[in-house]
């Protein structure tokens, strides 16, 4: 959930090309993106709080992986630094990670982590409301922020010589956030509109309903944006208390990529954050709750629009668990590319879906493995659901061949390389490693992917059948008709 303003339907820049070549293809036909390489999206983290040794530097071979040497340090005030140094880039991207997210909210605090993220742009002593955006723009840069269940992240992309400004802004709003009551009231309305926006989108609304069911009783079930009724009660004092409790330098990582070296960064960070002392945390951050233990298949149905949409979601091992790479491989074999099992079967052979996609979230706590599809007009929704279960059963019954694994590995590797060409993506990914997953996480992940054997994937298939999962449907609205439910396609047992 980002603070970012913007509508993808209208270009934010005047670069519409000849028709436009760059944007002409509506759907990649053999997309790397469909491979869903790790690190491709803001991860959904959870704080593990591994503190690196002060002054330590990471292994030199990280340079080959990231395309730039990666170095780390920890300042006396507890702030951890990680830098991908690339003097050839004309810019510097920063990502300041705080180890707090929606999962840290106590009863009654629903939505506070995300609300506070918004308020960090609404005025501090040196930078009045809106001044962060104005200053960033005047420097030729951009900024944004996002909140997940497990972390809150503030980003800047600035021309190479201007990166110190990002640190100055971060230091000031960390120490002197104003939280003016009028600004709080106004921004609350913005967040309520953000909630309305997501609830109006058919896929977002379905996703929220499915996640709520999948993680029932777990902090991940709670919406990052918060519940409307609670949001209306949050005031400046709540926000300030939340910030004081969680926004500490010893609970933060500053990740940087681009034309900036560690020594210079460390010196400037020491100077700029000098006024921020190490504070005693109000209590150790709670660990991530384990997966919801009850192994059962849930079901969610909604009525919306004209297209039938299926979202299958299952609990999966978190990003740091040994089995996570195996699951990543399994999801890729099932859904990555037109040659994947589910695409071939659902879209090309049975033609009971027009589009499919798959994902495995990156969390320290339990992850979400998901498959999404849309059903063409005239096709009974039971059909694609039945085929989905049949293919999961096939995965459990028979190992994929080596070629399927090679294909999935190759797609994930290429996707990762292309996705992390941008300094901004590198900064976010390095921050995720340092804050959440452990240094060298992505490199290890790709090493583990090399070790995955075909038979390993059978266990994933078995777990998808027997573990905790939810089938969510968004079904077409029946004008004036019944709102009856869809018959469950079949049970795993019936397929055996």
């Amino acid at each position: 959930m980002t603070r970012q303003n913007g509508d993808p339907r209208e270009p934010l820049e005047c670069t519409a090309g000849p028709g436009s070549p760059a944007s002409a293809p509506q759907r990649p036909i053999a997309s790397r993106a469909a491979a869903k390489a790790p690190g491709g999206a803001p991860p959904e983290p959870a704080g593990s709080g591994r503190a690196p040794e002060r002054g330590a530097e990471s292994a030199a071979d990280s340079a080959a992986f990231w395309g730039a040497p990666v170095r780390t340090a920890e300042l006396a005030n507890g702030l951890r630094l990680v830098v991908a140094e690339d003097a050839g880039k004309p810019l510097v991207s920063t990502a300041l990670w705080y180890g707090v997210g929606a999962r840290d909210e106590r009863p009654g605090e629903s939505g506070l982590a995300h609300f506070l993220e918004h308020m960090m742009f609404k005025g501090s002593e040196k930078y009045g409301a809106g001044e962060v955006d104005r200053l960033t723009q005047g420097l030729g840069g951009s900024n944004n922020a996002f909140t997940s269940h497990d972390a809150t992240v503030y980003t800047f992309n600035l021309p190479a010589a201007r990166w110190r400004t990002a640190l100055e802004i971060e230091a000031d709003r960390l120490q002197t956030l104003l939280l003016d009551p009028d600004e709080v009231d106004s921004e609350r309305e913005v967040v309520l509109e953000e909630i309305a926006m997501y609830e109006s989108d058919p896929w977002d609304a379905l996703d929220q309903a499915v996640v709520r069911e999948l993680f029932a009783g777990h902090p991940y079930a709670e919406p990052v944006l918060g519940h409307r009724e609670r949001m209306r009660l949050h005031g400046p004092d709540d926000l300030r208390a939340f910030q004081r409790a969680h926004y500490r330098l010893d609970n933060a990582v500053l990740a940087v990529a681009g034309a900036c070296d560690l020594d210079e960064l460390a010196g400037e960070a020491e100077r700029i954050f000098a006024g921020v002392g190490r504070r005693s945390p109000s209590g150790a951050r709670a660990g991530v709750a384990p997966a919801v233990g009850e192994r059962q298949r849930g079901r969610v149905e909604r009525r919306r629009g004209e297209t039938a949409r299926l979202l299958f979601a299952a609990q999966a091992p978190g990003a740091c668990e040994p089995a996570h790479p195996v699951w990543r491989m399994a999801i890729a074999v099932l859904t990555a590319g037109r040659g994947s099992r589910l695409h071939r079967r659902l879209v090309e052979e049975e033609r009971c879906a027009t589009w499919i996609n798959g994902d495995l979230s990156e969390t320290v706590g339990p992850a979400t493995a998901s498959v999404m599809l849309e059903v063409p007009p005239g096709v009974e929704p039971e059909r694609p659901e039945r085929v989905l279960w049949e293919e999961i059963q096939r995965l459990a019954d028979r190992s994929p061949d080596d070629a399927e694994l090679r294909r999935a590995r190759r797609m994930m590797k290429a996707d990762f390389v292309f996705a992390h060409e941008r300094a901004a993506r590198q900064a976010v990914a390095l921050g995720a490693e340092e804050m959440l997953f452990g240094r060298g996480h992505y490199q290890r992940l790709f090493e583990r992917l090399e070790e995955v054997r075909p038979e390993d994937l059978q266990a994933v298939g078995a777990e998808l059948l027997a573990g905790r999962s939810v089938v969510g449907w968004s079904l077409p609205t029946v004008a004036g008709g019944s709102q009856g439910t869809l018959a469950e396609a079949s049970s795993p047992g019936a397929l055996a």
Partner: protein
Amino acid sequence: MTVQPTVAASGRAHSGADRLGGELVVASRSAAAPLISLRVWLRGGAAVEPLHGLASLCGRMLGEGTSRSDWLEIANACETRGIGLSTGGGLETVGVAIDCLAEDFDRGVDLAAELLLESSFPDERLEWQREQTVAELQSLADQPEVRATWSFLDQLYHPHPLSRPLLGSPESLATIDSAACRTFHQESRQRGGWIALVGAVDADTARRRLEQAFGSGLETWQEDDPGADGAGETAPPPGRDQRLCEVALPGSQQMHLFAGHLTVARTHDDAAALEVLGVVLGAGNGLNGRFPNRLREREGLGYVAHAHAIAGAGRAPGRFLVYLGTAPENRARAERAIVEELERLLDGGITQQEFEDARSYLLGREAMRRETVAQRADLLSEAIFFGRPWHDLQWARRRYESLDRESVEAAMRRWLAVERLRWTVGIPAD
């Protein structure tokens, strides 16, 4: 065909007699990452399609089969190597975009050539693509902001192809068969095309390889072909007569409000000034800009609020627009605020600080738009099409550096007007 390479860093304007005959190969070595981005485009988009949706469907069909390979073999050729392949048709072009690791350069070039020169448009695949496209249109229509956007574009651009979804409509798609695709593709090839290539390969190697792969498959651009001048601006479409269009949005909690009118094409002399103005209005960083500042930051009316002065400009005019997603009960406040801000802008002009901040933003953004090989390949494509060196960083920066506050205000007063505003309001309905 003669392949005549040039190098990206030349910064040369490709216009008039300077345009290179035949394919244009633009290669630039990128040492930072071992990646290649290849774009091969033919002139043949919706702007010249005889049937609504034909260009888009033709573009999609490029990946559906050739005289040598079926769809699955094409997919396998990409996915076993991690090659990213997109095919499609837009307003002005149809073509192929490939992103691959440098070690797969040869495969990528061969694949692009096969898809463009040997495409077979098999009947059975066309039928399925058509069904998928109809389903995609239905799915898009479920998204409230898309439905509202379609209405707004129709209001402004009718009867230009931009006034309707480039994908086509269920009715128009039903009339398209393989023969129509083959004919359209052949005509597109005859109109000519170009190649833009960026990545870890040197220009000589690239030229040799492309010559080998494409041979004489692409015709040269004809200077006397009136449709061949990519930089030529099209006449502004009249748009719909009505000042206000209201559209029902089933399932939406929010109202989607658009206000705006057409401005100028991308190659117009005032385009750069309107880009700077657009940032002042709300097309720049964060929530900066007059309209998002008023609508979201000061009044808390919505989460998404932005404004532009030349959005979507190509050969056809771009548009001044203000957008807000908000609760239905905020409608009157939002409409009043938009009019007041536009009047304030036109009456009082922009401040020197606003001008300088906006220009700085655009100058800084230029470097960030060239960070990846794919970004640079796309800029090169546009440079070739429009006959302007958009890919040249120094040229791009000079466009903005030559402006001052007065020139931006003058362009604003030439092209923005309260009385020209047209409104589209998407209203929640259940």
